[in-house]
C-alpha cells in the first residue's frame, strides 16, 4: 500500500496526463465520425489478422487429427460413389443431366469465428456466395449437425449454431423412427433437448438421434447425438436430453450441404398450405 502511494505520488503528473489524454482520445474517436471510422477500421483489421494467425497455428497443431477424419470421410464418399454409379446403370437418365440423382451438394469450409457462451450463438465460415454457398444450407461437422446458414456475403457466411435458442430442427430416434423437435435450452453446450416424443414410445439411453429431412435443409439421417437421459414432461410427452455428437468448442472443418431440389419441393408444398 505504501509503495503504491509512493508510486502514485511520484508519477502523479504522468497519471493525470494519461487520464486526461485518454479522455480526449475517447472523445476524439467517438465524437468525430471520420476518426471513429478510421479507429474501427484499424482495430478490426488488427483483430482479423490476429484471429487468422491464431487460427493458422491451431490448424497446424490439429493436422494429424484432421487428416484422420478426412481419410475416413474419403472412404465413405468413395463407397457412396460406388452406390451412385450402380444406380445409374439401372435407370433411365439423360446423358446431359449432370445432377441426375444428385440431391445434395457438399462444400467443405473452415470456421473463422465461433461462440458458444451466449444464448444466441452464431459462427462464421470462410466461404460465401462466390464459393456457391447460400442461405438455408445445412452445416455439418464431423458427421454431426452443427447449424444452418443464415447470411452470406461474397466470401463469408454466418450460420446459426445449433446452440441458439431460436434453432429448431426436426429430429428422430433412429431405432424406431419417431420424430420430434430438437432445440437448445441455453445451458450446456454439450446437450440439446428433444421434445414431442410421445410416452408410449420405447427407447433407451444411448440411442442415436438423427435428422429427418422434413425441413428440406438437412439431409435425412445426419447424426445429431445420443440420448443421455429423459424425463416425462407435462401430459403425454418425453423431454429427452441429447448428448450432441458435435463438439462445438473445437469446430473446425465443416461440411456445408445444399439441397438442389429444395426450391422445387417448397414450391410444391406451398400449393397445399
Amino acid at each position, binding site marked *: 500500500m505504501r509503495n503504491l502511494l509512493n508510486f502514485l505520488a511520484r508519477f502523479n503528473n504522468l497519471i493525470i496526463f494519461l487520464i486526461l*489524454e485518454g479522455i480526449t482520445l475517447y472523445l476524439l*474517436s467517438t*465524437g*468525430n465520425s471520420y476518426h471513429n471510422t*478510421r479507429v474501427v477500421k484499424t482495430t478490426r483489421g488488427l483483430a482479423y489478422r490476429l484471429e487468422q494467425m491464431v487460427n493458422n497455428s491451431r490448424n497446424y497443431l490439429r493436422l494429424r487429427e484432421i487428416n484422420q477424419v478426412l481419410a475416413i470421410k474419403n472412404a465413405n464418399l468413395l463407397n457412396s460413389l460406388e452406390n451412385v454409379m450402380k444406380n445409374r446403370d439401372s435407370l433411365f437418365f439423360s446423358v446431359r443431366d449432370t445432377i441426375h440423382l444428385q440431391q445434395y451438394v457438399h462444400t467443405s469450409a473452415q470456421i473463422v469465428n465461433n461462440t458458444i457462451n451466449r444464448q444466441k450463438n452464431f459462427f462464421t465460415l470462410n466461404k460465401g456466395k462466390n464459393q456457391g454457398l447460400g442461405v438455408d444450407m445445412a452445416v455439418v461437422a464431423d458427421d454431426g449437425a452443427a447449424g444452418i446458414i443464415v447470411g452470406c456475403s461474397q466470401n463469408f457466411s454466418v450460420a446459426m449454431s445449433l446452440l441458439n435458442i431460436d434453432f429448431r430442427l426436426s429430429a428422430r430416434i433412429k431405432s424406431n423412427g419417431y420424430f420430434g423437435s430438437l432445440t437448445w435450452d441455453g445451458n450446456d453446450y454439450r446437450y440439446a433437448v428433444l421434445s414431442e416424443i410421445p410416452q408410449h414410445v420405447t427407447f433407451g439411453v444411448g440411442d442415436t438421434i438423427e435428422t429427418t429431412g422434413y425441413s428440406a435443409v438437412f439431409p435425412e439421417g445426419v447424426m445429431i447425438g445420443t440420448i443421455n437421459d429423459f424425463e416425462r414432461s407435462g401430459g403425454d410427452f418425453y423431454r429427452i436430453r441429447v448428448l450432441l455428437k458435435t463438439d462445438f468448442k473445437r469446430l473446425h472443418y465443416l461440411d456445408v450441404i445444399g439441397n438442389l431440389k429444395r426450391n422445387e419441393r417448397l414450391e410444391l408444398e406451398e400449393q397445399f398450405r
Partner: protein
Amino acid sequence: MINNIIRYSVILTILILLQVLLFNNIQFSGYVNPYVYVMFILILPVEIPSWLLLLLSFMTGIVIDLFSGTPGMHSSATVLAGFVRPFALRINSPRDGYEAGSFPSMFIYGFRWFLVYSITIVLIHHLALFYLEVFSFKEFFHTFLRVLLSSLFTLTFILLLEFIRKGR
C-alpha cells in the same frame, strides 16, 4: 493570488474569443491555421503545480473544441502541450534559474529565451493537433508543411500579443 486568477481569466477569455471569432476564420489555401490560444498555456506562472496546469490545458482545449465542433482534437493537443511545458521550462532555464513567483515573459527573460521556449511548445502542440486532425501518416510531408507554416503564423501572433500585453 486572487489577482492572478482574475488576470488569467481575462486573458483566457480574450484568447478564446480571438481564436474563435478571428483566427478560426483565417485559412490561407488550407495550409495556414494559426492556433493562438496556446499562448495561454505558455504564459501561466512558472511555479504553477503540474496538475493544475494539465487541468487548465484540458479545459482550454475543451472550450476550443466546443466552439469548433471537433470533440477531443484540440484538448488532446493542449493536454500534451501542458504536459511538455515543465520539461520545456527546465531545458530552457536561464543561467541563474527562474525568479520566484515570476511568469514566462519576454520582458523578464529576454526575447531569445521566449522565442525558443514558445517554439518548443507551439511545435509540439501543432504537431499533435494536425496529425490528429488528419489521423493518418499518409501524405506525411504535406501535413508536416502545414504544421510548420501554421506554427510560424501562430508564433508571429503570439509575439505580437506579448508585445501588446506588456505595452499596456
